[in-house]
């Protein structure tokens, strides 16, 4: 679903992310871990061509679309529909004066999909939300519900890939457990591909198949999550693991 080769993203001549190789297949979860400024979010955004003003080179294929060469229309067709982006605080992106159901219906219509009540209720139930929530406004729901609504939106639009940037780091730990449970189930039951950006190595170790460790814009280590996180080869990965309280 995602195939990246020799990716370089730079701003004003300074390279902020270099990723030689990144593949995510259907039903797989790959995590990019690292600290602030490591280039992990930049890498994620470049997959949808969302790094405005940056110099991007290399090859990026997402759902068969060559992101760096695609026409804006082609990019619009994958953004939001086949590839969904889940950010840290989805509530900030939801219009405060629009009910969630109206918002979902608009998104479905925008992508030329049927926007029936059944489709929307099913999507809500897939992420363990009561469909009644579609009548609410964004300020009437909690952070965990907003995050699951963002995932429900992806389900309704038939997303095959979810790109998630710190999707649970603003949530209480008990709510995080629920959201992670939803992501794991969708991956198993629907074969969703999941690319997760996170600073939380413990969380990543419980959900990811493979992991890339980034520091100062470069991938310092990558491989199967169980391997990298139990027998780290790079001193920085070791430092990250030892720093866990």
């Amino acid at each position, binding site marked *: 679903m995602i195939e990246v080769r020799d990716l370089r993203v730079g701003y004003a001549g300074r390279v902020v992310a270099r990723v030689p190789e990144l593949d995510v297949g259907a039903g797989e979860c790959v995590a990019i871990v690292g600290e602030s400024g490591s280039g992990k979010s930049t890498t994620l955004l470049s997959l949808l061509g969302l790094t405005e003003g940056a110099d991007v080179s290399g090859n990026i294929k997402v759902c068969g679309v060559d992101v760096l060469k695609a026409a804006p229309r082609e990019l619009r067709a994958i953004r939001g529909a086949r590839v969904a982006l889940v950010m840290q605080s989805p509530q900030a992106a939801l219009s405060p004066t629009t009910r969630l159901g109206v918002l979902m219906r608009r998104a479905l219509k925008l992508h030329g999909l049927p926007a029936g009540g059944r489709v929307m209720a099913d999507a809500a139930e897939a992420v363990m939300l009561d469909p009644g929530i579609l009548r609410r406004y964004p300020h009437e729901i909690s952070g965990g519900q907003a995050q699951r609504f963002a995932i429900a939106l992806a389900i309704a639009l038939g997303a095959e890939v979810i790109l998630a940037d710190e999707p649970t780091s603003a949530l209480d*730990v008990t709510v995080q457990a629920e959201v992670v449970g939803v992501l794991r189930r969708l991956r198993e039951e629907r074969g969703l591909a999941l690319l997760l950006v996170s600073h939380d190595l413990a969380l990543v*170790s419980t959900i990811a198949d493979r992991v890339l460790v980034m520091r100062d814009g470069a991938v310092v280590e990558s491989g199967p999550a169980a391997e990298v996180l139990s027998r780290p080869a790079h001193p920085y990965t070791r430092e990250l693991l030892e720093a866990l*309280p």
Partner: protein
Amino acid sequence: MTLLRAQDVTLGYGGVPVVHGVTLDIAEGGAGLIGESGSGKTTLARAFLGLLTPMSGTIWYGTQNLRKADRRAFRADVQPVFQAESLDPRMRVGRSIAEALPRADRHRVPELLEQVGLAPDLATRRPHQLSGGQRQRVVIARALAVRPRLLVLDEPTSALDVTVQAKVLDLLAGLDTERLLITHNLAIVERLCRTSHVLFAGRVVESGPTADLLGRPAHPYTLALRDAVPKLGGEPPVARGRAEARPAATGCPFRLRCPLAVPECERAPEVREVAGRRVACHRAEDVLTGP
């Protein structure tokens, strides 16, 4: 004799209580206040800092009611450490620290910077010229300036990267000042606090030695918190009960989220001693023996 003690303290804003009848001692060896957003932990910390007057009940500062105590002495004994963003952005950090010192002691700025592991020449920098970890150290240096007996730490490392956090925790663990730590991060409490208090919906639901509490919880909420924390290479975090149900207005506040709730839980549980800790749950024995 503990330095600070809350006795049946109810706290609120605009006449609406958010912390209900809390009794707890800040015991030696570090005390942790654990709970999720909205549980009342920061409100309780504000009361311990004398920044919020109880609606009812008493905060004891030694043998005095904090409301009537000498503020100057209290400020020298109890100092807050908030997140690094509490520094004045326009002020050089040396001056920020000097402000907290009596005029005759201002020569101690370099010594305080060294105490928190910073080079004394950083004193001429402004906060934005420092990293997040360095800023947090400055905040700690400023709090240490008056040689307090107790630091009240409200999420002191939650905005920091994990490698930076580890160094700030080492610093805090090495100080010989007592601490009250407010956090949602159980691993940090384990590291810094011998005693812990778990808050839910403004009530202390379990108190006791941290190792016992997290090793073998007696309250279903403590259990839910502990099992929700992802562990490196461990099983995926477990969601026990419904994490987003609102606290119940009557009876046990946790009952709408609790997987063990029974009709008896419609009656508010008394705080009682069970297995070396204080717990407010009708089913504490069942939680302890576990499934």
